[in-house]
Each structure stands twice: as C-alpha cells, then as structure tokens.
C-alpha cells in the first residue's frame, strides 16, 4: 500500500465520537482496565504516532523513537524527586519542559546525522541510536540508579493514580488527542506537504529549491518532541523508568504497534496500541495450551504471528484492512461515486 498525500479534511465526526467514547469509558470499565489497557494504549499510541508521522509523511521508518522517549523519560525522572538517579527535585512541570527540550534537541542533532541516509541505512542508523541510548543509561548508573529510578514524583494534577486513576487517564487522553491534532494538522501545512514531496521525489524537491536535509531534520525533531511526550507519559504511567524500559525489545514493540495499526495512517498508532495492550494482557490467560509451542507463556509468539499475518494480508495494518474494505465497496456500488460528485459540485 502506497502512502497518499494528505490534503483532505480531518474526519472531525469520527474524532468526536472516539473521544466521547474514550471519555465515557471510565463509566463502563473497571480501574484495572482503565489503567493497564486504556491509559497504556494511549501513551503507547503517542510513541507509535511519532514513528508513523515520520514513516507516513517523511518516508522514514525510524527505530530511534524508543531511544528518544528514553531520553525524555530519564531526563524527567532525574529532574524530579525520585528514588535513584540524581533526584534534582525540580517542579514536575518544569521537569516536563526540561525533558521535552532535551529530547527535541537530541532528536534534532541526531536527525541532522540520520536525515542524510535513506531506506535500510536509515533504519540501521536509528536502531544504533536506540541501542546507544539503552547502553548509555545501563552504564551511567548515576542517571539510571541502581535498579532504575523509582517512585518518580508526578505533577499534582494527576493526584495519586494508585487511588484514583481517572485524572491520569484524562490527562493522557487529552495529550493523545492533542498529539493527533497537531500531527495531522501539521501534515496539511506547507511544511507537511513539502515533507510529503520530499518523501516521494527528493530530487525534484531539491530542484525546486527545497532544502531536503533540513526538511527531514526538522521532521525528525518534531517526531522527537512527540516521542519525548510519550516518554514522560510512560514515566507517569509506570512511575519508574529503568534501562529495561527502553531496551531493544521495547524498540521492536513500538514498531510492531505501528505496523499492526497501520504504518501509513496516524490513527493506526492508537488502534495498534489498543490491540497490542489487549493481546499483551489477555493472551496470558486465553491462549490454549498446544504442546510446548503455544500457551499463556508464549505471548511473544502470538504477537509475532499477528504481526506476520498483518504484514502478509494487509501491509496497511488494521486501518489498512478498513481502507481495503471501503475500496472494494466503492467498486461494487459506483452510484455512490456519482452522488458524491454531484454533492461536491453544489
């Protein structure tokens, strides 16, 4: 499936309904589901959205997003009061800003290097970056503490999530919606359209006078900012961060989420994250025992199979399945297209 240039309007009614459903979710589901499935899916979705933004509009499949959110998460955890790390005891909001600034700067600097490469080389260089961040924090124990940074202080707004998870859920929801609006809005600006031009025809764009490397670097910086947001949200969610939270397995998980959801559509980030969180949690009880091949302990096998099936059947992910269904519906009922044209004409 080839990515398309986004010029269409945002599907506001869809967004409204989804947000409404998400806002009403606490009435229906219990605290555990709210925490472990919905809140987690929302912040994982933000992380995956930063990857999808780069992949869909910039043609850059980046494995650096976990490294970048690790930088933000570790920065935040070190700046506020916590057990382990440097525990600088800043105001949490100030620490949030500090973490985002650091992640964005690191992202810009790294993007400046990575933006010169493409395809598999881009993939490798970004993977190397994530591995580098992981080893940096594993080795520099003054920053990552002994056994990670624990009991990280949260902003007062979030209250005490252990007693009442609602404030944290709503904050995460608002941030996720904000990220979605920002990224989809950005893709429709001159910058976003230029980025999509760079994705499809870098040589022509260069001939038109665009600074292709700068364009890609800036896109990388924006994605780093979003990844930074995800990093801070992850620390708010886990209340801790360890080098293990940002290891290679997590890097792959974020890629899997993006691919399962749909690598070419921003919505895919959250669809994939929700699917992932559901499988991650419930497969530990539901999966039947099939010899030593499959069983509740084989959660990774199941995710791997889902990943394979998605890649083979619908390269556009779950969202792509819907696109496919819609396309075949349209072919079967050409009258709709005629109706559409007339309405657009009026």
């Amino acid at each position: 499936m080839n990515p398309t240039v986004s010029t269409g309007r945002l599907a506001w009614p869809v967004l409204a309904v989804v947000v409404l459903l998400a806002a009403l979710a606490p009435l229906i589901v219990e605290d555990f589901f709210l925490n472990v499935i919905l809140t987690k899916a929302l912040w994982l979705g933000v992380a995956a959205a930063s990857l999808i933004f780069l992949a869909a509009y910039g043609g850059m499949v980046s494995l650096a997003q976990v490294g970048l959110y690790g930088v933000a998460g570790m920065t935040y955890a070190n700046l506020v009061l916590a057990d382990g790390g440097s525990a600088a005891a800043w105001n949490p909001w100030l620490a949030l800003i500090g973490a985002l600034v650091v992640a964005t700067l690191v992202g810009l600097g790294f993007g400046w290097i990575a933006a010169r490469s493409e395809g598999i080389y881009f993939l490798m260089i970004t993977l190397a970056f994530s591995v580098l961040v992981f080893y940096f924090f594993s080795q520099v124990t003054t920053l990552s503490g002994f056994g990670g940074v624990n009991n990280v202080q949260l902003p007062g707004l979030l209250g005490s999530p252990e007693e009442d998870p609602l404030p944290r859920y709503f904050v995460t929801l608002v941030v996720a919606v904000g990220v979605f609006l920002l990224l989809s809005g950005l893709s429709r600006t001159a910058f976003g359209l230029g980025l999509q031009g760079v994705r499809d025809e870098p040589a022509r764009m260069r001939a038109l006078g665009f600074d292709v490397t700068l364009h890609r670097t800036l896109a990388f910086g924006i994605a780093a900012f979003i990844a930074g947001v995800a990093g801070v949200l992850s620390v708010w969610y886990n209340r801790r961060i360890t080098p293990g939270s940002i290891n290679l397995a997590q890097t792959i998980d974020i890629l899997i989420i993006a691919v399962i959801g749909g690598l070419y559509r921003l919505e895919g980030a959250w669809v994939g994250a929700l699917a992932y969180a559901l499988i991650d949690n419930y497969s530990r009880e539901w999966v039947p025992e099939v010899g030593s091949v499959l069983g509740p302990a084989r959660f990774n096998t199941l995710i791997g199979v889902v990943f394979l099936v998605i890649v083979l059947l619908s390269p556009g992910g779950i969202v792509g399945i819907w696109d496919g269904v819609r396309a075949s519906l349209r072919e079967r009922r050409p009258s709709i297209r005629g109706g559409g044209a007339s309405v657009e004409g009026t």
Partner: protein
Amino acid sequence: MLKGHRSWALVGVVAALALVGAGCGDDEEDSGGGGTSSSEESSGGGTIKIGFLSDCEGAFGSFFEPTISGANTALIKFAGAKPAGEKPSDGVTGAKIAGKDVEIVSYGCADDTADKAIEETRRLMEQEDADVMIGPLSGDEGIAVANYAKEHPDQTFVNGIAGAQDATLKVQAPNFFRFHPDGAQWSAGLGDYAYNDLGWKTAAIIGDDYSFPYTSLSGFVAEFCAIGGNVSKRIWAPLGEEDYSSYISQIPDNVDGLYVGIGGAGLINFVKQYQEQKGRVDTERMLGNVFWDDPLVLKEVGKSLVGGATAAMTAADSDEPAVKTYLKDLEDAYGKEIAGLGPSVFTYGYYTGMTALIKGLEAVNGDVSDQKKLQEALAGVTLSGEEAPWGDVKLDDNRQAISDVYVKKIVKDANGDGVPDVQTFRRIPEVDQTFNGVFSPDTPAPDRTNPKCVKGEPPPWVGNAEEVDFSSK
C-alpha cells in the same frame, strides 16, 4: 460526499473497536466474579487467593517451571494440595490453609524488566484479585515490586528469589518480606576463606554490569576488605557480552586472586575464553559467585572449574534428612528432572517463601480481610527443619532473612556421571544483610565502585564458620 461517507464509515469501525475494548473489560469482570462466587460456595468461608510471579521470558525464562515447582511443593507439603498435572504450571488442587480454600489465581510471567514485573503484579493483584503475592524472580523486579508494595499497604508480598539488596534494605516496605538471603549474603564466607585460608592480600573482581552482580560481589568486597584485604581492580562487562577477551586481558597479574561474578551463559563463554587466553583456568586463585555450581555450568565447563570455591544458601551434597525429604517431595510431585534443580536457589527461594506465607496465613486463621495482622504474623515467622532444610530462617527489622550460607568447592566427579561434583566444606551461620554495618539504609547502594574497600570490624561470622563434611558420613 466521498469524504463524508468515509468519515461515517470510520466512525463505525472505531466505535466497534471501542466496544470490543469495553466488552473485554466486562468479560473479565464477569469471569472474575464467577470464579469468586463458585469457590465461596464450596468453602463457605471465602478463598485465599495467591498470585504467583516469576519469569518465563528473558534471561531467566528457563527457571519458570522450577520456581513454580518450589512454591507448589510447599503447598503440597504444608497445605494438603495435590499437583493438577505433570507440569508445575498446571497448578495444584485442594490446597487448604486454616480450613480455607487456597487458589493460585494465575502463574504470572515477567521478563526480568521492572516494567513487566509491575504490569504482571497489577494483573495478579487488581484484575485477578489476589490477596497476597509470591514473587518476583530477578533483582530489578524485586526493587520495583517492593516499591509497589509500599503503595499498597493493604496487600502482602513475599519475595520469590530476587536478590538485590535494596528491595529490603532501602525500600523498607512494611508489607514486603524476603525469606532468603540477598545476593551479598550469598557471598558470605568467601572473603574470610580467601584472606585467611588462601592467603590472598589483594584481589580483583570481575562481574556483569548490572544490579545483581553489584550486590553479589559487594558481599565479598565488604568481608575481604574488613579483614584487611585489598580489592585493587573492579572489571565490569556488559550483561550478555559474548567476547570476554578484552576483559580477561584487563585482569591484573599482580593480584593474589580473582572473584568471578559473571552469570549464566556468559560464565560459560568466560571460562572457555579464559582457558584459550591463559592456557588454563587457575582455579587455585579463583572464587566464583552463586552461578558456579549451577548444574548447567558444571555440565558445560565444570571440568575447568574443579578446585574453585563458591558460596550460596544451598548445598547440593548435604546429607541432612530434611534436605533429602525436600528433594524427595519435589521428585514425587514433578519427577527427577525438576527435582534435580531442587538445590538451585531459584527453586528453594520460592519454596521457603511459600512455606513462610502458609505459616503466616495459618497464624491469622486464613483471615486476609485485615492484612495488617497477616503482616505482623509474617514478620514473626521463623522457618526450621523441613520448612527450611538448608538452615533456619528468621527475619530482621527490615523483613530480610538472616540465614546460613554454605561455602563449597568444585571437585572431580565421584559419582560417575561425568560432571564434576560439589563438596561443601563450611557453614557460615546466621548471615545478616548489613555485614556489620558496611551496608545500611544510608550507605550508597552497591555499584561499580561501592562499597569502598575499607578495613574495619569484620562481620560476626568471620572466625565462627563451622567446618562441615557431608561426604564422610
């Protein structure tokens, strides 16, 4: 129109997804509720729900079944349970404590990262509604679960076999209990042995670069330096390293000995490469931590390690009747292969943890409604005899075990299976976590440079070790 059509179609799909999500939540609620009511009917007095947490993925994934076998065997022995299948993870049936039914709500599986351990803890405690939990397995996980415990004072946690010192010494959650020695305690007796028996004055240490080896090697440093020894070089290799040659070449020649704290598959590579680089493994000037007499390590490279000494809280060759009973109980329940891992600290830690939990629950008549009482009871629990076949266990004020540790030597194969044997020669009585004040809540946690090598008052067991010989009897 096309755009409009597209949006409404999307509305449908997302709404459907959201409903699926909500539906899952409801299902879970239903099944959870159903489980509780049916068991309540059968016992009349409510069910004690235990959550179990170990690792089935990651570096320690292969210890999943052995850890379960330890916990289950305690339930079989002290709570009248029966194995529900051939594999330990098939569960147990018919367990009763103080007349109440006991149910293991789920065998939780983490992957040695703190995040996954906490997610599984949440699933066990919040989704499966467990009253108490036993676990986790690995260092960083233990610190995270102890912190989780601190935030949930109305629930009770008994550690599985996570050995990082901080979990009890620093976190000090009043509802987190560890009924086995930590990683530093497992090294007790080796500093004394090196200085006074082997005559080492200076030593180097080498280990994996993460929390457990820091703790494990710190026990040696604390004891060896307190007596008067000097640790002149500390070498750390990244966990999962395969090529140790550059680290082996960093080992100085002008030291009397080397303490090796490399674990698992890394140790096998280390020994092979050491042999290639230096001709032979000079075990007469080498000590190893808890991994050295691991059955797998002995099988692969044991012949090269003959002559080396190591220490831990179990002794495979012990002839104590209680040890024999423990191994027989394991074998009766799960067969020879699993029972062969009985002396592994992984199986044994979960066994003593579950045994202590059962004793604590018995002391409060199985009442888990007010867990303050259960926590008070657990703090006073001591284990002896068949409850803790390798030596009595009691807790200190941080709810950390004070227990015996054994110093062992790897010797040539005597029983004809081609794998070198372990010969225990010393029992270090009542090892406590503080090493006579070297470790306290205020001292820096063990890391690459801590604890500092300082001469001081040696821990109380130095000079009080008891020579043992299981082979002569």
